[in-house]
């Protein structure tokens, strides 16, 4: 049969850990879809089935189309990069902040300030001039932590860092500060690369749960802008509403899956 040919090891492009995640998640999604007994439910069940097939076969059509694989090429060449080229997720976002570069740089350079505007960070502890310890709220509530070191730094212009070897989430990032003419403040650009748990599927999973990394970095930068320009981050969390919060949560969940 033709299909068995596509199952040869050469066509596999999903690593073992991710295959298991695919099967488990796919089964759950399919089971949920079947209980819905609606057109949307059938579609959801179909998607779950596709995930199970992806895990069982080790072949992902999407990865194929994109020309990527989550199977490590070798374990040897990890000596000087945290996230090997072609692996993981890359995010780039920019925001304009109405302050001179020096002030934003000084705030950012003290990494212990980062959890004040990065919603997925629980804490950062500065260990010495170069090294710091990061604890995050990972995708779908799972926590992760690592040590990071600053590998590149030009005062008031850029800071570059990466996780040290053996980190739970291999990642690297940089932030760039570029002044604007005409009193328009500073362009603050963040570039992040990271290898989320569960490989690329982890990022897809995160997207399903609304923790899309591009969106998250964009919202974090928006929060940074609010905090630095106004001293606070806009919120409506905790304000009154005509529907008790538990009932409201149920309703919003119902709307999301509808």
């Amino acid at each position, binding site marked *: 049969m033709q299909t068995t040919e596509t199952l040869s090891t050469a066509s596999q492009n999903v690593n073992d850990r991710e295959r298991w995640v695919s099967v488990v998640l796919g089964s759950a999604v399919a089971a949920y879809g079947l209980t819905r007994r609606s057109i949307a439910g059938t579609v959801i069940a179909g998607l779950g089935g596709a995930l199970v097939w992806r895990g069982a076969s080790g072949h992902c059509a999407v990865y194929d189309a994109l020309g990527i694989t989550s199977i490590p090429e070798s374990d040897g060449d990890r000596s000087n990069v945290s996230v090997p080229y072609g692996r993981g997720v890359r995010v780039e976002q920019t925001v304009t902040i*109405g302050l001179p570069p020096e002030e934003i740089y000084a705030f950012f350079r003290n990494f212990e300030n980062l959890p004040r505007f990065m919603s997925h960070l629980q804490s950062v502890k500065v260990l010495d001039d170069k090294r710091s310890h990061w604890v995050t709220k990972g995708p779908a509530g799972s926590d992760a932590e690592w040590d990071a070191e600053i590998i590149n730094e030009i005062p008031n212009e850029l800071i570059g860092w990466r996780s040290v070897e053996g980190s739970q989430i291999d990642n690297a990032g940089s932030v760039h500060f570029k002044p604007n003419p005409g009193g328009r403040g500073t362009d603050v650009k963040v570039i992040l690369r990271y290898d989320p748990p569960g490989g690329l599927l982890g990022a897809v999973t995160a997207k399903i749960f609304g923790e899309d990394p591009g969106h998250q970095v964009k919202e974090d930068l928006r929060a940074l802008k609010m905090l630095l320009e106004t001293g606070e981050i*806009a919120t*409506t*969390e905790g*304000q009154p509403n*005509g529907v008790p919060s538990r009932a409201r949560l149920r309703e919003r969940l119902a709307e999301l899956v509808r």
Partner: protein
Amino acid sequence: MKAVCWFGKTDVRVENVPDPKILNPHDAIVRVTLTAICGSDLHLYDGYIPTMTKGDILGHEFMGEVVEVGAAVTNLKAGDRVIVPFPICCGRCWFCKNDQWSLCDNTNPNAWMVEAMYGFGGAALYGYSHLYGGYAGGQAEYVRVPFADVNPVKIPDGLPDEKVLFLTDIFPTGYFAADNCDIKPGDVVAVWGCGPVGLFAMKSAWMLGAARVIAIDRVPERLRLAREACNAETVDFEEVDDVYDVLKEMTGGRGPDACIDAVGMEAHGHTPDALYDRVKQVMRIEFDRAHALRQALHCCRKGGTVSIPGVYGGFIDKIPFGAAFGKGLTLKMGQAHVQKYVRSLLARIERDEIDPSFLITHRMRLDDAPEMYRTFRDKEDECIKVVMRP
């Protein structure tokens, strides 16, 4: 406390909800003494603004007494009487500093939603959907006011609530619309819609030096108010064959120098394009009915200005853009930069140049809100403006 909550299309209720709390250092809590229903609230009532959720507290025209201030608010204290502009502004971003307050960068926690729809998002508004920040509104006994150090305006004791309440929205919105017309001596200003914003646009056009003001509507008591209180010449669009011909005739064949669309997305009309809009809006193919806007674009003189304070939310079609281009029109629009105008307009009220309470037709209690939304929407009982005391 009691609050007017949205529960769905044409379903608003007065509910008991928890009192608001200080959530950020620049917040204040205001005890509401007078609040109003705005014409733009009717778009929420009729279900034309997306991202409303059940239980959302309505209202963006309100004033009252400060009862509590956050740690970073030093210019206000408990007991101060204030009016609160409807756009929530930070006062520190590039837009606020450049007097474009309603385009503020820093107050909408859901800015990403607006960005997805409009490319970029502006200031959050009170009680006007989650798209605009999801802030609880002021049709309530108490309300949380963010950035209380820059937004509220203190009101001197001698002025009654009814004279200053409309500084929160409709008076500055009408003034903004007229200011956008860049009125020169001799100019004729035509205003579509004799609702509260239209009426204030007429008053403001006179303040800014218009030579003549023409009002277009179909509701008799509104046309009467435009004539009697705002000194406008009036055109009842249901009584004439073609508004264009009438306006052209009235202006010696030139057309009005400036046209103001104070109607917005729920326009009424009896021409084919109005019917087309109605059908598409009911079928949710088109969000907004734009009959008044089309007519304004068509009627405006060459090189004139069309100013749009009426609210639009989504997509409109059959816009005579060729007419706008062919006549070299200037289009100006948007939510009013209330904070830019509010102090000078308060001074006009203090000098007795205008008494904005002239258009109040209904003085009610907050409990009457559900009935009043319906009455105002249906223009029953000669309703032009409803104010409510909690």
